[in-house]
């Protein structure tokens, strides 16, 4: 959406509540929708984008609501001072919660949020300062220059503007360096780590952002209702917010609003009609919502928005800016990467028994061996994905044993994967831009405030250059899911190059490529070598690797059985035996 569209939305939020003849009841429903949609927007980032599920959003909303309620009643502070307090409180609580919970994976995390939600609820209901089960009443309304916003239509304006603001900042955040990092958490975490994304930080960012939006919604809620009690901050409410995101389409920003509209309206209709059907005093709407959640997951797991909206065209990025400054390549011929007696066992299986070799800058070293020889494990040892049981990895003379993939990336290693790991929700050029993560510096706050545009332009210019080099410039705006397997491997090379590495580890890059594509890849690798790049190549295509490599290291059963120039290795009896099982 263009800035003009956002302005129009904001104008709509200001004017719509004052439409003559609009029943006030509708306005109050709109307020509910707006507050819910802000929370659901946070869930889009957390669940839809970053792939984490939280049932605790209503409880986090309670943090913001109680923070401002206590300050404005007990201490008589202005509600406007309650806003930063509410945001800070939810931020701090989310940081603390995240620090102990976010290491949990998948369903453990979701269960953890259930535990948090139940704990917070009972805390609200039992703390004296929060008024226990009765809560806090007499909260002042917002006021602007002495004008108290008691009219619900005025509150609707504030809530509407708040929603537009929340969606705008979310859009900005998602379209940034950290937005790409968060998207990579879903299905591309290993690849993101290999270009230096600190996964823990990305997870925390998504969690804290969603929590701050929930706290903001809580602040709006407290001054709209003028009273708070524990009920709206319990687990059932938390489930409802998740329902909104799932119904609307958790991966889509408009889905949050759509889900909020549907759930609030249906809830309202149910509360009107169900008592006539099943008698008063029965929460029949929870039955309907529970069933709706189950049926949605069975029938339309991606939510309604993707079904209603036409498939949006992927965003085209302007790539005319100057690219990122080039990284300095170490001197030709220097030692780039050294493996010293590396060993790795998995239980009783020795995948790599004893691996030693040296890779020099400006050299292309082929690592070959029959299936199961330990090549991919070696790759993981060299890039920090797996830690060796024994032995060392040195990078440019520095001991890097035990380093994380991120540290390896920081020191100039980039890699591709045998099974291509592209982020499905990003376009091709965005996947390549993910590779520049360490070369950018913009913080999430800068992204939200749109202060990262100059850097982003340079990042995309860089990504475009690398794509062009790899011959995939035409596919820049294609979705990563549309590519053939061979092309995905090439995109991985472009992503690795975008990191500005001095050592490149390529795991079977030629697999699945056609003849002409292989030749183009060979030309690219030769050019990189000429520039001084150190390249380690694992490859099964013997013709390809023999014609390219300066030297070969041959592995079998986890050890090096031969090393040398291709023409010598080809005649080595041990190599022939390993490949052909011994010539009788």
């Amino acid at each position, binding site marked *: 959406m263009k800035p003009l569209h956002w302005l129009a939305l904001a104008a709509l939020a200001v004017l719509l509540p004052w439409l003559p003849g609009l029943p006030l009841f509708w306005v109050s429903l709109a307020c509910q929708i707006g507050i819910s949609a802000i929370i659901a927007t946070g869930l889009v980032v957390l669940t839809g984008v970053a792939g984490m*599920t939280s049932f605790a959003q209503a409880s986090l909303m309670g943090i913001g609501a109680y923070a401002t309620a206590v300050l404005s009643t007990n201490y008589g502070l202005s509600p406007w001072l309650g806003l930063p307090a509410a945001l800070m409180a939810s931020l701090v609580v989310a940081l603390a919660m995240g620090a*102990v919970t976010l290491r949990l994976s998948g369903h453990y995390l979701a269960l953890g949020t259930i535990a948090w939600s139940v704990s917070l609820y009972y805390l609200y209901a039992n703390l004296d300062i929060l008024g226990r089960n009765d809560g806090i009443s007499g909260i002042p309304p917002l006021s602007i220059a002495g004008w108290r916003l008691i009219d619900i239509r005025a509150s609707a304006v504030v809530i509407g503007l708040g929603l537009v603001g929340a969606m705008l900042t979310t859009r900005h955040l998602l379209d940034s360096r950290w937005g790409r990092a968060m998207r990579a958490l879903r299905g591309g975490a290993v690849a993101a780590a290999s270009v230096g994304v600190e996964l823990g930080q990305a997870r925390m960012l998504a969690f804290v952002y969603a929590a701050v939006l929930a706290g903001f919604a809580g602040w709006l809620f407290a001054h709209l209702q003028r009273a708070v009690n524990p009920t709206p901050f319990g687990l059932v409410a938390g489930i409802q917010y998740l329902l909104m995101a799932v119904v609307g389409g958790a991966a889509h920003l408009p889905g949050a609003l759509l889900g909020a509209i549907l759930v609030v309206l249906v809830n309202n209709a149910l509360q009107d009609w169900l008592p006539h059907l099943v008698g008063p005093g029965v929460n029949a709407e929870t039955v309907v919502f529970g069933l709706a959640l189950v049926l949605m997951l*069975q029938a339309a797991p991606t939510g309604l928005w993707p079904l209603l909206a036409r498939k949006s065209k992927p965003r085209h990025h302007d790539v005319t800016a100057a690219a990122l400054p080039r990284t300095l390549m170490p001197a030709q011929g220097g030692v780039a990467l050294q493996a010293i007696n590396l060993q790795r066992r998995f239980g009783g299986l020795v995948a790599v028994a004893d691996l030693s070799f040296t890779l020099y800058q400006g050299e292309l070293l082929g690592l070959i061996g029959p299936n199961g020889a330990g090549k991919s494990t070696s790759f993981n040892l060299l890039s920090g994905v797996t830690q060796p049981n024994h032995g060392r990895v040195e990078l440019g003379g520095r001991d890097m044993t035990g380093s994380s993939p991120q540290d390896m990336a920081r020191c100039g290693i980039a890699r591709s994967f045998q099974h291509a790991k592209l982020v499905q929700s990003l376009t091709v050029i965005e996947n390549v831009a993910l590779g520049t993560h360490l070369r950018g510096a913009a913080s999430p706050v800068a992204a939200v405030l749109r202060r990262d545009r100059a850097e982003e332009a340079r990042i995309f210019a860089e990504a475009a250059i690398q794509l062009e080099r790899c011959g995939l410039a035409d596919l820049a705006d294609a979705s990563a899911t549309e590519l053939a397997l061979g092309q995905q491997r090439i995109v991985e090379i472009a992503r690795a190059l975008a990191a500005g590495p001095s050592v490149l580890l390529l795991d079977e890059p030629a697999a699945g490529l056609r003849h002409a594509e292989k030749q183009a890849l060979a030309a690219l690798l030769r050019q990189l070598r000429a520039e001084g790049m150190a390249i380690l190549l694992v490859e099964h295509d013997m013709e390809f690797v023999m014609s390219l490599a300066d030297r070969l290291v041959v592995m079998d059963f986890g050890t090096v059985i031969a090393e040398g120039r291709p023409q010598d290795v080809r005649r080595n009896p041990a190599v022939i035996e390993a490949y052909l099982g011994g010539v009788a």
Partner: protein
Amino acid sequence: MMDTSTLLALVQDGVVNGAIYALLALALVLVFAVTRTIFIPVGEIVSFAALTYAGLDGKTTPPVLALTMGLGLVAFLRGAVKARGRALMILALETLGLPATVTAIVMAVVPMQLGIVANAAIAILCVAPLAPLLYRIAFAPLAEASVLVLLIASVGAHLALSGLGLLVFGPEGARGDAFSDAVLEMGPIILPGQAIWVLAATLATMIGLWAFFRFTLAGAALRATAINRRGARLVGIATDQAGLHAFWLAGLIAAVSGVLIAPLTTIYYDGGFLIGLKGFVAAIVGGLVSYPLAALAAIAVGILESFAAFQASAFKEVIVFAGIIPVLLWRSLRHVSVEDEE
């Protein structure tokens, strides 16, 4: 400060409650291992069984039967979309025939007033089938989905079932008759009859489960499915069927727990949820796979809860549920991986 007798009473209380959490933890581990579903509605089965047991007065038909038959109808309609021929027959038998038979039997037996053990059996019979019916409606169609999706669906099923519970049982709580009024005195330990019943029933259920897994073909099929779903299918095990069996067992165990807990405390239509969650805390300590660890952890949870209730009763639930966080943390630290999720 507390004296020895208070201490003993607290521990004893904790162990009795913990035994019930242990049963639930077993049910949860079983269902998760076989179907990857985190069975949140287990709590509703507990409260429904407890309320059904407490409500048996020899005159009224248990209201929960309407729910069992209703869910059966929904499960039939849900399954009839795909099933044909013999499969449709079996489906009709299990989803329509079985609840109808249960209803007929219960309506015949209730007026006979056969006593407390019979009442317990009636309550279990009425409520246990809810679990396999839920499986057919909510979880079997999602068998290939991720654990996370199954969990969200499970939370949805919990929400729906707890709403239905209010509809069926109303907002009032109830407490069932104790199985026995006898009191066993062993030095400083005073063991009420109900506590003995709970411990004995828990032990019997565990031994029964062990024997089932060890000696029966159906048990072996469940174990195989739990260890490797695809592998089990390749050797001819119907994993759908294994899932159904797992939910049957879980339903039975949860209904037994409900009947056992009914005389110990007043149960409301939504009270089972918190009880079930405590079973979860224990199941998670066992990593959702280890039965003995889960059972031990359940006892620990029971004791923690009973001390928390004594020291800071208002914050009892906060303490117990915040207690799950370090456990989760320890669990996930033992599985450090940057593997992609999904």
